[in-house]
């Protein structure tokens, strides 16, 4: 009787150790690698936009393609804070010493994609701020396993997320 119980426990333990533990470790590592890939891709995407002053459909598609190569589906969000210097100009006309109060207004993902649909190149100007973020929208294998075993992670939360932002350093031009 005692032996049988031990065997059952050992079989259970072995199953956990031989299959589930490696599976969970592997899927955790996969998430780490995905996180790294998404991080790098997001940084590269934002950097290439801010150093050229150009956001193109091509760059965006390449970015989405890069992060999708991790096998997950992602929610990509972009925000462009457009610098409006006009209010600052009006101010300096009346007050000598003020440097100028600039206003930013934002364009969000859907607006940016709409614009990119119309023309494949969107030109930004020096001083604009560009932000991009990516979060996984389908649960990763590691999330699914954790959900199954611990039921601690809700279905809606994400485990892979990256965000990068920067100030555009050059006014974009169509002709180079």
């Amino acid at each position: 009787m005692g032996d049988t119980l031990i065997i059952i426990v050992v079989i259970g333990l072995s199953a956990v150790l031989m299959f589930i533990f490696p599976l969970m470790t592997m899927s955790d590592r996969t998430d780490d690698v995905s996180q790294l890939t998404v991080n790098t891709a997001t940084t590269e995407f934002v950097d290439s936009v801010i150093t050229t002053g150009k956001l193109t459909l091509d760059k965006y598609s390449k970015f989405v393609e890069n992060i999708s190569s991790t096998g997950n589906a992602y929610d990509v969000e972009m925000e462009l804070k457009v610098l409006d210097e006009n209010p600052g100009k009006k101010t300096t006309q009346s007050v000598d010493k003020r440097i100028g109060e600039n206003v930013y207004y934002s364009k969000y993902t859907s607006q940016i994609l709409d614009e990119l649909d119309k023309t494949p190149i969107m030109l930004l100007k020096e001083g604009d701020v560009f932000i991009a973020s990516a979060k996984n929208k389908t649960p990763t294998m590691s999330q699914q396993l954790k959900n199954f075993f611990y039921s601690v992670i809700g279905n809606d939360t994400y485990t892979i997320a990256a965000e990068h932002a920067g100030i555009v350093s050059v006014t974009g031009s169509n002709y180079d």
Partner: protein
Amino acid sequence: MRIQNLAVIFIIIILPISLVLSSYTQNQVKTLSLQISYDNKLNNATYDALKAFKLNTLNSSTSNMANSKLKDIEASINTFFNSIASNFNMAGYDKDVLKHYVPALVYTMYDGYYIYSPYKNTLTDSEKAKSETLPDGENLYGLKPYIYYSCRYKGSSNSKDYDVVITYALDNYITVQGIIDGTAVYKYGYLLDNIGGDYTNNGNSGKDITYRGIEIKEETLQEYIDKDNKLTYVRINGTKYYTEDNGNTWYYYLNGDKMQQVGAKYKTINEEGKQYYKEAYDFTQWIKDNLIDLKASNAVDEKGETLKDVDEQGKNKFGTYKIFDFGGKDSQEGSIEDADSNFNQHRLAVIRYSIEKNLSVAIANYNRYTTTISANFQMPKLEEDEWTKIINNVSIISFLQGLNIGGKVYNGYSIITNTENEEVVRDDAIYLADLDDYGNYYRVTDSTLNNNTDYIGVLNLDFERRVKLNDDGSESYFFPKKQLGSYTSIVNNFVSEEAQDFYKYIDGKGENIAKAYYTALGRERYGMYRINNLQINEINKND
């Protein structure tokens, strides 16, 4: 073997593997994120350097002169090192330490570039000035002499033998120096097709000079010199001269000080736009008469051997095509100013070849100067699109190599370009402004521009804020032009598909818009500072 034993053996095997794998992945993650953060820091520092250069040149009225420009660049280099040191402060590197990891900084300018890298002080004790304290043979960091985007050609054209050096620039301005048919030549100017009108002996059309069929006319220019005063001005050789009394007396600002122009008078009616096209026509004719058969394959190196540089596909960039592929007087297709003309392709190939060659030498030489760092400094391979950025704009290229980032050695570079500066007047640097001070200014590609409205072409820099030194020593800000940026093309920039072909698009916008644009483009390019421009004053002087 009992199943328990198997389980134990399994754990013994898997556990270390999994631990090693996990720590390896963590290390990789750390290395990569460190690399990304270093890239970011380098980008920021380079941007700060460029911004400093732009602000310094914009607010200095002598920034065009070579020694003043050198000071501006040195200030910008200081900004770079200060900025990178503050960025790396947390990582424990300071300015002096970081200097050893920067093998080169490159400043690409209008017709050449500067490389900042170490060199050996070769002055001996007997040669150097008494006040000089630097010891002989010491390694110093500094700017190396300006290198022009130039190329030497040898061959014959129109049955004339030539051995000339052509210096290119970021636009289609070239300088030809050398010997043609036994005579020494030194010619310079813009290459332009599509110039017509009476000046070109092309009949009696009543139009003095035309560009792409649009007549170029004189204009009167006015701008604010402080918050309230708007004066008539002319821009000659990079300096703006103002008049308050309808052209009787003229003055200019020398770094904030008002300087009277003694013995010189200028016309209040500005003819520089016309003059630009006239001189471009004359120079283009001269090229047609003397160097029309010049081929890229005639390019030789300093030893006189044929130049070879292959592209990604293994094709020689200096092939047997004619460099000056003029399209003709009235042909609007295939003209030399098109981005895809042979001339432009060759110009870019020369600029790239020159930078690549000198920069790789500078970085490779750095190994000889550095004793503290064991890394092998090498020039990284730049991407095609990065080269496009460099050779079309004023830019700074910075390199940071040899820092340890965990698993590997950091080897990064950053290229930051600038489209708004006093060095070059690019095609898209001319904005159109409403004549009313409280109107708007637009890019030429703005879809809301109306051909029935009058506009004036303005250089983009004139909309930038300036600093004025007041009599009491305080400073105030003002804008030379008060118009506000259009929301369709300046604040936002909605570009239509057709605007990709710039010149064709402008021609299609209507005569008024095209005239304002072409006149301003000519005027601003003609008014730029150039060392050769000495005769220009005579043109605008009243007889």
